[in-house]
């Protein structure tokens, strides 16, 4: 089936610095140009990598959380070896609506991989190893001697029962940092409740209940489109691993056991839900795209989509209505004349928010996102439209800063992707490659780390251990 021809990216050329800073005085240009000299990604490969001395074994499968964690380390320079079952991580086979035509095919082997796995398989090597076999686990034991960290997400206690848990591996390598990742944890009353994929974590921690429109607006509890609890849990695991590395190098010379769960990472960031409940029994309600604690601070429909307008300060409140008043003077007059809206704190009541956003809607209905933003920015009010991914990919500022970029993979051809946000002066994060066929690095890794011979490879492949 022929897919329609897709225009190359970018559809509109990326701006040049001269265009961006045209007309500015030297003084005004000085600071942003200074930043460009020290953090533009063009300079990345001239600079060292912060974590190049570390080697990490990512043995996680099926979930995003472990791969997300190892990505942060890989982007910052660690050698990350993804240890996959001989048929590859099942996550490779995920594709939207099961559509094979959306997958990416390795031009040499013909192996297909879905976009979700591909996007996270960055800077990592791939080896295969069957940990369900005794001999496979023996090989893992030999590998961890050479590793700084190992990440696994097997059901609670499985690796321990296989003799490759933290308690056993630390005997083989006392410097090893062993990290388990999952949804709800290795211990506790829920540990045996099955459910190892996002959004299990999202539902179990209060996030889903609190997201989406309230029932009074016709809404329901809503999950994220993304496996975002895995993202937050994975980054938490990376914080754990890096702080363990620091402690090992500074003080102890030894590793430790880290546990990071997607649910608890989200619980950590559900700011006031727990304290609020403890103070007076309040149960945090959904409030759609409005905010319980700040007005004006919301996304509302506008002429061509949805528009975020923000301004909790009193000063910004008046600037927003001034902008509205340029086109709808009666609306601004009404707001300014309303004593119930005079005090910042009084604007939080639900009734006041209904009034606020209904009146703002009278202006938003006549303004598309770009116009609303242009007019509000004249008053220094922060605002912006809800962008869809095609708009994000073509947004001049994001293209200029390289939030989105295209890489040419020797395996998969041109791939558009979200770049690492780790911009730095001395040791920036970077992409070295995107995507890796299953077991592509078997020869390299097993030879240099374990001294495998041709016979070893033949025998282990035959026995389906590698």
């Amino acid at each position, binding site marked *: 089936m022929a897919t329609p021809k897709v225009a190359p990216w970018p559809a509109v050329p990326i701006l040049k610095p001269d265009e961006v800073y045209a007309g500015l005085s030297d003084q005004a240009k000085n600071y942003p140009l200074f930043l460009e000299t020290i953090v533009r990604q063009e300079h990345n490969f001239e600079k060292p990598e912060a974590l190049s001395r570390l080697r990490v074994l990512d043995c996680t499968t099926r979930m995003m959380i472990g791969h997300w964690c190892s990505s942060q380390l890989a982007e910052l320079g660690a050698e990350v070896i993804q240890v996959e079952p001989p048929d590859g991580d099942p996550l490779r086979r995920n594709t939207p609506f099961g559509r094979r035509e959306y997958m990416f095919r390795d031009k040499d082997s013909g192996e297909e991989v879905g*976009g979700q796995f591909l996007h996270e398989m960055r800077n990592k090597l791939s080896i295969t190893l069957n940990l369900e076999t005794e001999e496979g686990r023996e090989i893992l034991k030999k590998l961890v001697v050479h590793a700084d960290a190992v990440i696994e997400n097997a059901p609670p206690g499985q690796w321990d029962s296989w003799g490759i848990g933290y308690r056993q591996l630390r005997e083989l390598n006392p410097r090893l940092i062993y990290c388990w990742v999952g949804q709800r944890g290795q211990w506790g009353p829920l540990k045996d409740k099955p459910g190892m994929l996002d959004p299990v974590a999202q539902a179990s921690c209060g996030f889903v209940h609190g997201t989406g429109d309230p029932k009074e607006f016709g809404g329901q509890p809503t999950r994220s489109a993304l496996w975002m609890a895995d993202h937050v849990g994975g980054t938490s695991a990376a914080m754990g691993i890096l702080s363990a590395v620091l402690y090992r190098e500074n003080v102890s010379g030894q590793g430790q056991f880290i546990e990071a769960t997607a649910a608890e990472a989200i619980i950590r960031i559900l700011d006031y839900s727990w304290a609020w409940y403890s103070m007076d029994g309040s149960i945090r309600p959904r409030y759609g795209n409005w905010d319980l604690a700040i007005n004006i601070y919301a996304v509302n429909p506008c002429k061509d989509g949805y528009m975020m307008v923000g301004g909790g300060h009193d000063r910004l409140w008046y600037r927003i209505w001034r902008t509205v008043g340029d086109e709808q003077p009666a609306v601004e007059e009404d707001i300014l004349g309303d004593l119930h809206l005079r005090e910042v704190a009084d604007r939080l009541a639900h009734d006041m928010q209904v009034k606020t956003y209904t009146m703002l809607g009278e202006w938003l209905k006549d303004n598309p996102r770009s116009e609303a933003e242009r007019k509000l920015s004249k008053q220094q009010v922060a605002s912006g439209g809800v962008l869809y991914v095609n708009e994000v990919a073509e947004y001049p500022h994001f293209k200029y800063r390289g939030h989105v970029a295209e890489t040419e993979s020797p395996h998969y051809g041109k791939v558009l992707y979200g770049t690492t946000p780790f911009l730095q002066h001395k040791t920036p994060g970077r992409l070295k490659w995107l995507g890796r066929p299953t077991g592509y690095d078997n020869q390299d890794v097993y030879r240099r780390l374990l001294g495998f011979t041709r016979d070893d490879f033949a025998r282990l492949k035959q026995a389906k251990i590698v």
Partner: protein
Amino acid sequence: MATQTSTAKPGAQQGFEEFCRETFDFKKAFGKPEALKGYRVLSCTQYILGPSCASYMAELGAEVIKIEAPRRGEAMRHTTPFNEPFLYPLSRWVPERGTGLGFLGANPNEYFISVDFHRPEGQDIVKKLAAKSDVMVENYRPGTFERWGIGYRQLKEINPRLVYCWLGGFGGWGPGRVRASYDILGQSQGGNFGMTGKQEFLGGAPSKHTIWLADYWGGMMGAVQILAALYWRDKISGEGTFTEYSQVHGVTRQLEYALPLYGRHGITRERWGNWDTQLCVHGIVKCGKSSYPQSENPQEQEEGYILMSAYEDKDFARLCKTVGDGKMAEKYAKHDARVKAQSQMEIYPWLEKWATDKTKEQVAAILDKADIINQPVWNSKEVANNPHWQQRGAVQWLDDPTFGDLMHQGPAYKMSETPPRLKWALKPVGADNERILGQLAGLSAEDLRRLEEQECI
């Protein structure tokens, strides 16, 4: 050789769950060393992105000094849900006001001083503190700190080992660098907002993630950068550095398959509500009955929801058997058939119909018995009272030294030897002025009095 288990006996192996429970017991954390002992971090931050970044290091034992505007502190202290709950005093100068709960979670374990950055004496104080610090975290508009003489270029002359971490919305360079940002603006412009929420064809709209996802998770990304920079400095180079984190950039990084799909096929990923685009069955379904019909709290009166996950063929077969529908079992026996958009549009309403007369607990019990993965959608009270989260310290009763008995979230992850831990939730503005400014910035009692009178601190 390491002997991390207190009950280790030669030969005898403790049960794994028991071992984990003991190893990660948050109540034992204070008996163990801290990973970042000896590191000092300055947090010149407001709202959530910058503050949370510094707070993750405070959990690990770094001495984190939060610097706020005198008397009233930073803006986030003045946000609280429905304008109702506050923690008093806001500061010793303004005890009749309180800190709003919006401030919670972003600044635990920190020392709080107040300094007016606009004044030369204030800038001087920051320089003195930066000379003795390992990390500076700030999220003011790009160039502001440079104008005040305390930007990266100036501070690295004073302290070449300083790791200077700037976080913000749109970054410090590029055509949009002048735009201020908030969390949900980052979500809107970064792309995760437009794909979350009820499907367009069901009359839905995009939905924000109701946590400051871009900011809190962005702060974690900032912390990862800082930890890597400290490692590189202490182990390899001896040099500090400058890190820039744009929270909008972070959101775009999170978009999973959306960018590769758009680049290759020109397809823009749309909302798919509570279902999953890649796995079926793997979605959240409404259960028609309320779990607490007698409750006066509307949050409990609502009907419940539950996540059901049965995307393997054998699990789906078992689900159909449980629901009692052979036709569906046959029609959608294979995952390829189930995961199509049109199939999902038939399958989920069918599941909801079955759940119409049940509470989420009833559905969970039936599915548990049939060995089908499920997770009820819990509200904040159910989570707070759940023994699993309580035992693990994900939510903890905290004896806060200033504010008393408060429930608060624990750190996001656990470590066996150097666990991050919760010490206190927050403090009033300027609570530690005497201690920090006296000890670290070399200010005498006379200086402190004078500066306080001038409202410089």
